[in-house]
């Protein structure tokens, strides 16, 4: 039997997030609304969140746009990011955390800045996505700059097997492409433009 892996939350520079080894303190009151005077929020982030809040009849609707903005800035939904979002939204950190942990695209621990999401759902796996995912894992190896994840149906089964590489849909991919993608990302390039979904013509056009 293998023992379950323990995930220690770490900051991008490698040090542990405080509190990772403390059990929950049941005597403590839950965190209330963050105090604006003592919660530093970068102006840019505050403006983005406030602009989002203004778009909805209820400010709580802005929690996903706010978390997107915070994740873009900090790389993941860190305790500080959640605190800042909660402060601007006038919600409790518990509320914001509850939302952040529900959605797959919000990262709960520090991750690499190159995101490779390999679709491994039914259509892609029928076309070899599991091999592709393994190839990406091998190619990225232990490099902390990479966030290789398998993802559930990304909605691009026409280019199966595919991956979302820093948000760009690329496919169909061969396992051999994985190393090239990783190398080009390391070199700061956008990989495989000839396989971008955005340039793919409508399949039915050729049939009429």
């Amino acid at each position, binding site marked *: 039997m293998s023992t379950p892996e323990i995930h220690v939350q770490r900051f991008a520079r490698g040090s542990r997030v405080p509190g990772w080894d403390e059990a929950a303190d049941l005597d403590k009151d839950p965190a209330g609304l963050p105090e604006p005077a003592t919660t530093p929020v970068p102006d840019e982030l505050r403006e983005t969140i406030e602009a989002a809040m203004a778009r909805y*009849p209820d400010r709580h609707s802005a929690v996903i746009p706010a978390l997107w903005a915070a994740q873009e800035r900090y790389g993941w939904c860190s305790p500080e990011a959640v605190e800042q979002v909660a402060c601007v939204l006038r919600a409790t950190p518990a509320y914001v955390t509850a939302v952040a942990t529900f959605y797959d695209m919000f990262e709960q621990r520090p991750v690499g800045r190159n995101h490779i999401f390999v679709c491994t759902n039914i259509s892609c796996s029928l076309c070899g996505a599991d091999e592709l995912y393994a190839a990406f894992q091998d190619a990225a190896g232990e490099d902390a700059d990479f966030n290789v994840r398998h993802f559930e149906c990304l*909605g691009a089964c*026409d280019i199966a097997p595919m991956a979302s590489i820093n948000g760009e849909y690329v496919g169909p991919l061969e396992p051999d492409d994985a190393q090239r993608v990783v190398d080009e990302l390391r070199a700061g390039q956008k990989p495989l433009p000839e396989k971008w979904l*955005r340039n793919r013509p409508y399949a039915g056009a050729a049939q009429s």
Partner: protein
Amino acid sequence: MTAPTAHLLFDNIDEPGLNTLAVYERRGGYDALRKALQMEPRDVVSELEASEIRGRGGAGFALGKKISFLPQGSMDKYLVCNADESEPGTFKDRELMQKSPHMLIEGIVIAAWAGGITQAFIYIRGEYLLQAEILEAAVVEARDAGYVGEQILGSEHTLELVVHRGAGAYICGEETALLDSLEGKRGNPRLKPPFPAVQGLYDGPTLINNVETLGTVPAILRMGGAEYAKLGVEGSTGTKLVSVSGNVRRPGNYEIALGTPSREIIYDLAGGPPEGRSIKCWFPGGSSAPVLKAEDLDLPYDFDTLAKAGSMLGSGAIIVVDDSVPILDVALKLARFYRHESCGKCSPCREGTNWTVKMLERIERGEATPMDLDIMASVQERIIGHCLCVLGDAMAMPIGSMIEKFRDELEAHIESARERADREALTGNGGPGGPALEPLPAGAEGH
């Protein structure tokens, strides 16, 4: 060969710059909106009812009827466009939004006029970054041109339109979970009734429709509801965007008239399975639809026929599985997906998806007996209809259909996996996590 495509939405969809207002207008874009604004809202509803168009998102509910359910009066009403397209195998809305975003916006503005709605949202899945950017840009263009905002084209119609990006959750494609998510909560489904048309977003009456449904509205207004109803077949009018994927040679979106034989879609358009392979089973409407077998290929592709055959048209996503793939692999892939995506609110779905995965894994490890298939089938029956939403059903229906239609193969799989496990126990190598079963050879029947 006469091609069975029928282009209404995707006519010349690759025209360069169609995502910009200038090109869309040159092709007659927003003329349908002008026409609609000169009509009374109830006459617009009548046109939509006459078209008999059914929802393209999965449930197939008539659009005209849905709008007519909205209460009259001056309360805050909302329109939500469901662009969370996350049903495995479905990618039609993605192409529509990317290439012709104004078609969707025009449809939303018209539908809002028909329903007396002043605030609309497009809830687009978080993964569709490019499409969200394109939509945002298109909304800005439309607002600047006076198609969105206050007193649209000088009429009394006012509509605010917001593009809202989700963050990755299959469940948010379910309409009430989507509403919770849009309100800034975890995406948990709500108890129905009350239905969203009565009490939806922010407790106001809400019209929720799929991208393709709303994208068809301008075409219906342009040609007239009665004329639109001549397309397709009775009970399933119009054209449909079908996403074909899996083991086919030309995967992609194809726009067809409803009622086209399924075989023509899979073979003539999508090229059929790879050389030397035959079709083992196919999902006619996304991975939540019960599977059909090769002998069902001649069924016309429409709502009622597929329902009568024990499956559903769903989101219009055909996934083809060829004879090289063990059915257990398909079942396990699906069950794991639904286990991951179950929101956990209802026990039958939360536990049932988990049990199903565990039972399928037992088969793979060689620890199952044929009796497990009966237990698994009974678990599926106990999920269906017992939850707030249909996510659990979405696993239980296809898995149940696989147990029913491929029982022989699953029993053979159980037997061979047990033999392999016994052999490995004797020789002392392998065990749990040992080598996977070889794929079936070409042409082999599933026994």
